[in-house]
C-alpha cells in the first residue's frame, strides 16, 4: 500500500505512538497517507479510537512479525 510518509514508532511506549502520529500527520496534507509501525500492544486499540474521533481515516492495519502496521489517511 502506498504511503506519503512512514513513522517508525517501534519500541515506543504509551502515549508516544499517538503523540508522534499526531505530529507526523500535522505535516501531511489532507488526503495523504501516513504509515505507522508500532510495537506497543495498546497501539491497535489506541489508533483505531484516535482515528475515529479525530476525523482521520484508518484505511488498513495489520500485524507482521510482532510489528503493528497502520495506514491513516489525513481527514
Amino acid at each position, binding site marked *: 500500500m502506498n504511503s506519503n510518509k512512514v513513522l517508525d514508532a517501534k519500541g515506543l*511506549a504509551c*502515549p508516544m505512538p499517538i503523540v508522534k502520529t499526531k505530529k507526523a500527520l500535522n505535516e501531511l496534507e489532507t488526503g495523504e497517507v501516513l504509515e505507522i509501525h508500532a510495537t506497543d500492544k495498546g497501539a491497535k486499540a489506541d489508533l483505531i479510537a484516535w482515528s475515529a474521533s479525530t*476525523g482521520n481515516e484508518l484505511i488498513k492495519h495489520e500485524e507482521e512479525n510482532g510489528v503493528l502496521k497502520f495506514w491513516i489517511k489525513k481527514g
Partner: protein
Amino acid sequence: MEKKKTTIILFSGDYDKAMAAYIIANGAAAYDHEVVIFHTFWGLNALRKDENIEVKKTFMEKMLGKMMPRGADKMGLSKMHFAGMGPKMIKDVMKKHNAMTLPQLIDMAQEQDVKLIACTMTMDLLGLRQEELLEKIEYAGVAAYLADAEDGNVNLFI
C-alpha cells in the same frame, strides 16, 4: 469543529500518580483536545525547578521547602516507596520498557501546548514562589479552573 477540552486537577505529589496525569494530558493533546492541568497542594512539586532558588522565606516556609521534593524527578511513589528504593526500581523498569520519565512527560506536555496552571492559594500555603517553578506556567485560582472545567469533556482529579 470546536475543540474538545480535558481538564485535570493534579493534587497528588506522588511520582506514579503524576505520571498517570501527564500521560492522559499528553494523550488528550494528541487527541486535539485543549488540555489544562491545574496543580494544587502536593501536585505543585511537579512544577518545581530542581535547583535551589534563593528567595526570601519565613522559617516555616523554608522547612516546608526542604521537606518537599524539589521537582518531578525527586517525587516519591504512592506505593512501595521503600525509602527511595522503589522509585529507583521503577525508573529502571521504565527505561527497559522505553517509557517516558515524568520530567520528559512534562516537557512533552509543554511542547504540545498543554496549559499548566499553579494554584496561587496553595503556593502561598506551602511557601512556593514563582521563581521556584518552571517557566511558562500560568497562575490562577479556583474560578479560572472552573471556567475551563465547566465546558470540559473530560475532567479528572488525581
